[in-house]
């Protein structure tokens, strides 16, 4: 993709494709899963061709998402490692939420909120995969006891709700912090955006003469 002069690469093409496969799967899983979770949302199953199709297709989408999220883990885990600065950032989360930039520690490529989204999904996706396989009636229904399946379906529901709450946080933050969505669609951000939200990242890019997404010496 052509990138305007002077902008920084926020996400590589591979990361963007990987992200949007995951995102598409997540939305489909959420719609189909919720339709089988609450009767008032059963109408959503019509989007998938009815209840039988919804039940049949949901686990397959889950498989694709699991593989796709594995790709995201491989691409992003290094820059999502938790460190002391994240705790300082979390301490002033009220300033962050109030669009107040003063007194907020400088942030590298990802802030503590983004890391929270990354790691909670890294925990929830495998939990959903494992419990989902257990209750995949067509192929694995006979492999476990009914009591195990009852536990699995309960954990699956709870983990799914947790994932949806994390997803709402993720989507809202992207809308709230202007310029972020383009960072994941077209892949670039302006230096001003980096200065405002990821100053430490910008400093490292500048110091190593890199256009992003990673400082040159860290490649």
């Amino acid at each position: 993709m052509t990138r305007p002069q002077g902008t920084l690469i926020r996400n590589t093409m591979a990361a963007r494709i990987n992200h949007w496969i995951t995102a598409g799967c997540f939305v489909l899983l959420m719609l189909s899963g919720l339709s089988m979770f609450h009767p008032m949302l059963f109408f959503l199953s019509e989007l998938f061709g009815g209840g039988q199709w919804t039940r049949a297709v949901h686990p397959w989408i889950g498989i694709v998402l699991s593989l796709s999220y594995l790709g995201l883990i491989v691409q992003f885990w290094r820059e999502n490692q938790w460190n002391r600065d994240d705790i300082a950032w979390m301490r002033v989360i009220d300033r962050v939420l109030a669009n107040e930039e003063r007194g907020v520690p400088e942030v590298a490529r990802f802030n503590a909120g983004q890391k929270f989204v990354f790691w909670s999904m890294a925990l929830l996706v495998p939990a959903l995969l494992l419990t989902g396989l257990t209750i995949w009636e067509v192929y694995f229904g006979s492999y476990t006891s009914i009591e195990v399946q009852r536990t699995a379906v309960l954990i699956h529901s709870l983990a799914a709700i947790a994932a949806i709450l994390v997803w709402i946080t993720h989507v809202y933050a992207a809308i709230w912090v202007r310029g972020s969505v383009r960072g994941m669609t077209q892949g670039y951000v302006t230096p001003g955006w980096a200065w405002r939200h990821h100053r430490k990242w910008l400093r490292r890019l500048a110091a190593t003469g890199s256009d992003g997404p990673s400082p040159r010496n860290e490649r």
Partner: protein
Amino acid sequence: MSDLQSQDYIRISASTLTPPSTRRHEDQVAKLIDTSRCIGCKACQSACMEWNNLRQEVGHFEGSYDNPMDLSPSVWTLMRFTEWEDDKGNLEWLIRKDGCMHCEDPGCLKACPAPGAIVQYANGIVDFISENCIGCGYCVKGCPFDIPRVSPVDHKSYKCTLCSDRVSVGLEPACVKACPTGAIMFGAKTDMQEWAGERIADLKSRGFDNAGLYDPPGVNGTHVMYVLHHADKPSIYANLPDQPRISPLVDLWKGVVKPLSLVGIALAAIAGFLHWIVEGPNEVEPQDEADAANILKRGSKSP
């Protein structure tokens, strides 16, 4: 089973509305299975196959009188044979006709996510409406008796209908009609309880001190009841649950998690919207671009 406009529903699965129920003033029915009069002839199994046009694939001899070995999408009732020794060493041959118990509080219906796939009529019969079934197997998890079986061919769940089609036109279930010893009786639930009382008194007079009626209160009673000679230990009858109830896991899932989750999701979305109208978007300002340009200028000089 049926497309009849019943208008006599007590419950309909996955529905937040009151089902059509104006024609509900009818007797609650029950099937009474007297294990002490059963001779294990399997006429009930044959009658069930015949009336419902079910044919299980022929299997292999497994060293047991049980034939076939388990319930299946095409085996809705099954005689289960147990050789049991009492504490004096006397052998007793316990025979129990297994199948859906038609619980007053049906776990399958509670767990079902498909609107109208499981219904309970005013007479107490719990029925699976196949056209609405999505084949998820939640009914299997909801059932305290391990009864429903999902077909791997058509992905629909099946179990005994208590011959709801026959009962709705005033006939007794096929198994009842076929039983040669009167071990299976059918009628109003109160009549069946009364009849069971007579049978239990008779059994007690003949030395079965623990004879009793199996109508488990954990599921608010059932519309299929057993007379057991050893009602103090139902589990000796091929693992008939001693105190069946809907699993607390299923209760938690469908009773608490289901409604609270939607509230939680709605609150999260509302919180986001409120933040947007209170604090607004976080925009990059011209000063940010100027500061950033400075950094980049310095950066390009230094390496």
